């Protein structure tokens, strides 16, 4: 039988790109803000999915890379007046290097121990930055408004940040797709299912896991740099916010762990739902409660997440949705 492969990735990227230009075409600034956040969450969720969904390592404190990338980039722009794009890359590379350094020892830990270690690393980094005077200590750093002058004013800077975030998100999704379809991805999934068996069939788990961890740290760092460039202010509790870390795990599980589309769907649904709850006067106060309830229902009853559920329920979809 002839194998037809649906052009999943191009279709997905085109769809997201179309959504991304929507606020530009309609000149809708508030929609742009919403989508900026959504693309950021897609980046975070898709990255975490590479280490958690494919490899099976629950990186609870993954937001640490968002914070590191954000801080280094912000500091470069703040002290040396570096261009944003340059600073973003210069922030993300050390973040990936740090991931490699800490990944080698902590990825030896399994299960709950790994999850706890990532929380510890995030908290240690937050506590350290809080005391680190060059980064502004507990107060953090904030831009003088004139810094945006180099980009043609605050409006254009926000526009640039938006485009960057879209590109980062699309790059993350493409990476996530290629990892999943590659031999490397197969190795990761073999490790997830049974590390000892993976070793027997000739996979070097230690190396594969560190690669996955480094890849999954790079994009959140870029997202952090972009987010705080646009934000204009960076402070430790905002940059290393464990809750945001856990929220991105929730998005992955909600959408469908281990799939390419899952984190995207999860991020979009979660963010839409939160927006709805916050603006709805009846629910505004119970926003967190309902988020918790939804999470519990998904964890208990829809283990595969939305995308996983659809794929299991309608097998023909499997060749179309990855």
């Amino acid at each position, binding site marked *: 039988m002839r194998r037809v492969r649906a052009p999943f990735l191009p279709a997905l990227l085109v769809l997201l790109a179309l959504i991304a230009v929507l606020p530009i075409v309609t000149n809708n600034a508030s929609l742009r803000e919403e989508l900026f956040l959504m693309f950021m969450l897609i980046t975070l969720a898709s990255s975490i999915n590479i280490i958690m969904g494919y490899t099976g390592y629950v990186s609870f404190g993954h937001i640490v890379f968002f914070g590191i990338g954000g801080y280094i980039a912000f500091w470069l722009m703040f002290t040396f007046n570096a261009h944003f794009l340059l600073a973003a890359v210069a922030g993300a590379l050390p973040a990936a290097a740090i991931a490699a350094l800490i990944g080698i020892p902590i990825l030896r830990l399994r299960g709950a121990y790994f999850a*706890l270690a990532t929380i510890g690393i995030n908290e240690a980094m937050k506590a350290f930055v809080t005391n680190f005077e060059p980064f502004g200590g507990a107060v953090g750093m904030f831009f003088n408004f004139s810094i945006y002058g180099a980009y043609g004013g605050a409006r254009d800077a926000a526009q640039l940040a938006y485009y960057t975030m879209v590109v980062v998100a699309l790059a993350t999704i493409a990476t996530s797709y290629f990892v999943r379809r590659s031999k490397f991805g197969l190795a990761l999934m073999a490790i997830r299912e049974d590390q000892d068996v993976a070793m027997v069939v000739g996979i070097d788990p230690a190396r594969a896991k560190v690669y996955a961890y480094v890849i999954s740290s790079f994009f959140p760092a870029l997202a952090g740099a972009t987010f705080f460039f646009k934000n204009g202010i960076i402070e430790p509790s905002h940059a290393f916010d464990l809750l945001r870390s856990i929220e991105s795990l929730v998005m992955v599980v909600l959408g469908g762990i281990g799939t390419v589309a899952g984190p995207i769907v999860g991020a979009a649904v979660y963010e839409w739902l939160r927006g709805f709850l916050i603006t709805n006067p009846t629910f505004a106060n119970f926003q967190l409660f309902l988020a918790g309830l939804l999470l519990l229902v998904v964890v208990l009853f829809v283990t595969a997440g939305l995308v996983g559920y659809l794929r299991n329920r309608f097998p023909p979809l499997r060749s179309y949705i990855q």
Partner: protein
Amino acid sequence: MSLDALIPSAIDGLMLGFVYGLAAMGLTLIFGVMKVINLSHGPIIALGMFVVLLLSQSLGINPYIGLIAALVIGLAFGVVIYFIAVDRVINAPELTTLLATFSVNLMIIGVGTAVFTTSPRAIDIDLGALRGGGITLRGTQVVAAVVAILAAAALYGFLFRTRLGKSIRAVANNRAAAELMGIDSRRMLALSFGIGTALAMTSGALLSTLFSFTILSGTTYEIKSFVIVVLGGLGNPTGALVGGIVLGVLEGVTTVFIPVSWVPVLEYVIFVLILLVRPSGLLGSRA
């Protein structure tokens, strides 16, 4: 810096360490019995604080009687949480149970912030102070430490001297074998979750007599509990108590040498290092 400051700080830390240890015993008991890291631990500690606050403010009940209420409510609440959120996924991979207990965390915080807001609260209580040899101990501090020690002793008596406690240990050791001996493992798991929750709420109740707090305060103590539990070895209640004392004294003593704000850096670095070097904890056998 002077050595004179060292001893009072160490004793201060020691007193607090027992209370930390009590909270951590709750966390570690649950992990030891069912391999679940309870991410609702922090908000539960905060609930313990609010039980005492509500009882003393609205009914004028003494905080130390409120403490007993916190214990009982904690036990019942823990059993409820177990059946709603944990029972169905008890054999699932750790991500599932982490998220299930985290969803409970979100729900408690959600309702808590809506009902209590996040403004700081404090219990108005003063038991005088003990003085001697240049050391001053607040009465509330001493009582908190003593209560924490008594609660830990009671847990020990329960786990090692009663049939129910032995059944819990049997389930922790080997669930299948325990079931073959006629132990209803599901009931034991629920009971352990209840006891773990009760311990967390009790320590919260004790902390409420020492410091001001909000509904979000639990997070700090939750992360401290993680550190302690890892120090003492995951799943080891004795280790948790020892770890609590170590952390408390460490917090007290290091403030003499380094600025307070650097203490958490030290704590978390130690935490990660212990996980890497001796995942079985300071008291555990070499991994």
